[in-house]
């Protein structure tokens, strides 16, 4: 019991720290911005990792789900309830952002039943482009020029909170029957079916969870930048998230954190390069694929992230052992 409370306690402490950090004046605005960005990117990374890492698919459309979350939440805070008390409104807006994105994950998930590999990549690409160009044609949300004046509601505390929630939920999923089913699909979908895995259900769970959290990240993103437009959520954004996944480690919670942290900081350091920054990231992707496609922590995780397995000590009676010796080939 003790060791179950310890991580919880640490997380709460972290939350308190995150909440009071801005007020202490120890951390300037820029640093807060970076911390929030790391958290948002971590959510994006771990959620994409569910589909691309654990399930072994290739979704290019993550930025599209992010866009849906960003816009849905912003519509709530800017257009519909601009005067509502933000402490109450913001979490609701984020949840709705996630919800809208999660709903969008359902048709994509369904499409993945019959298509895999290249064709699913194409479908997710089409999804991304449709969301982007769809948003460009909606005057209500500002069309191609986007939405301005989004209230700055994302604090370090909120970002940290949602990041912890995302990692916790996805960790639970990965170490549950659905998570195992998802990994089995990656390894061998036909064998998975033959072994009783309801692959359709597993795929839906993966896609909806993944897109939900992408939406959450999008909502946090919108309320940090205070300005969003469709081109914020284009293929380059999806590529950024892909780099985080494949750099940090596919199918790894710790890897997702690492990848997000590294890429966020790298992006910040490369700011002075301007447009050339956008050459570095894809180059990094190519180099990763050529030399270390699993990333830093591919398919592995730190033990403190995994749930404890209570494995009974297995002793055998000598009788049984003798029987085994004779028969097993």
């Amino acid at each position: 019991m003790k060791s179950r409370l310890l991580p919880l306690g640490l997380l709460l402490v972290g939350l308190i720290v995150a909440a009071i950090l801005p007020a202490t004046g120890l951390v300037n605005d820029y640093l807060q911005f970076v911390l929030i960005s790391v958290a948002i990117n971590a959510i994006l990374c771990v959620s994409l990792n569910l589909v691309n890492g654990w399930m072994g698919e290739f979704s290019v459309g993550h930025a599209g789900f992010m866009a849906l979350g960003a816009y849905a939440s912003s519509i709530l805070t800017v257009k519909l309830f601009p005067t509502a008390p933000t402490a109450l409104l913001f979490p609701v807006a984020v949840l709705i952002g996630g919800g809208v994105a999660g709903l969008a994950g359902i048709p994509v998930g369904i499409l993945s039943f019959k298509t895999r590999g290249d064709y699913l990549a194409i479908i997710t690409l089409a999804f991304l482009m449709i969301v982007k160009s769809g948003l460009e044609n909606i005057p209500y949300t500002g069309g191609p020029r986007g939405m301005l004046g989004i209230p700055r509601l994302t604090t370090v505390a909120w970002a940290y909170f949602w990041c912890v929630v995302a990692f916790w939920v996805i960790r639970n999923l990965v170490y549950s029957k659905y998570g195992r089913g998802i990994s089995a699909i990656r390894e061998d979908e036909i064998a998975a079916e033959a072994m009783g895995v309801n692959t359709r259900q597993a795929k839906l769970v993966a896609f909806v969870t993944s897109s939900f959290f992408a939406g959450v990240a999008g909502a946090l993103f919108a309320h940090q930048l205070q300005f969003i437009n469709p081109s914020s959520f284009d293929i380059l954004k999806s590529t950024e998230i892909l780099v985080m996944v494949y750099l940090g480690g596919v199918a790894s919670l710790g890897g997702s954190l690492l990848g997000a942290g590294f890429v966020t900081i790298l992006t910040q350091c490369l700011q002075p390069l301007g447009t050339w920054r956008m050459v570095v990231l894809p180059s990094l992707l190519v180099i990763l694929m050529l030399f270390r496609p699993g990333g830093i922590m591919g398919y592995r995780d730190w033990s403190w992230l995994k749930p404890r397995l209570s494995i009974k000590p297995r002793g055998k009676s000598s009788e049984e052992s003798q029987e085994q010796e004779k028969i097993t080939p």
Partner: protein
Amino acid sequence: MSALLQTRNLTRQFGGLRAIGDLSLTVDRGEILGVIGPNGAGKTTLFNLLTGIYPPSSGEILFDGISIAGLRPSEIARHGMARTFQNIRLFRQLSVLENVRIAYDSQIVCSPPDALLRTPRARLREKESINASLELLDLFQLGSLAEDRAGDLSYGAQRRLEIVRALALKPSLLLLDEPAAGMNPSEAMQLTDFLRWVHGKFSLTIVLIEHHMQMVMALCDRIEVLEFGVRIAGGKPEEVKANPRVIEAYLGTEGDLP
């Protein structure tokens, strides 16, 4: 009803190729049925049809009285039909324990919200699944390898693991596709004893595709012979062995096919 599995006029076409033609056979509860035939006879196709990997072009499949043609493989598996594959299709990247648990998972009830929030009920199921899977692994002397990567196991251990995984489904019918592939005659005979033990211990009905003739003769209660997707003979091992049509098809001398 003594027939656990029945096919009636089962047919499967792939474009112009008739892989299985008008096949009607029965598998009785508790028996060990061998399916033999030269390469290309349609044996694995038969297994794929039975397990739902693709639907029949026509005909019926009745499993324990239920028509299963057209059902998804996972549903058929949950009804109690398990199989191993000719080419060993383990989840190589995953651990030995996870391989077994995945099959066992089909029996635990855990809704998505339970899983996502890791409720006490979910945790209980997890614990049950781990313990049950480990027990099963221990029975087959794979328990000490539980945390190892399935792909790293020796060939023999992998074959065993595939059988353990299939057994985790608590099947009533076990389909084995060339379990002795790649084994020399003495290993094959050891496997024969092993399968006899499994058959008894788990009260199974077994259908076995094999090329190792000694194994088939020693293990099977009955044999069906396929050639070009069609049943050309069937019956007790001695009958089949002596059947000139079968000998003509491929049983040259006693022994294995190249």
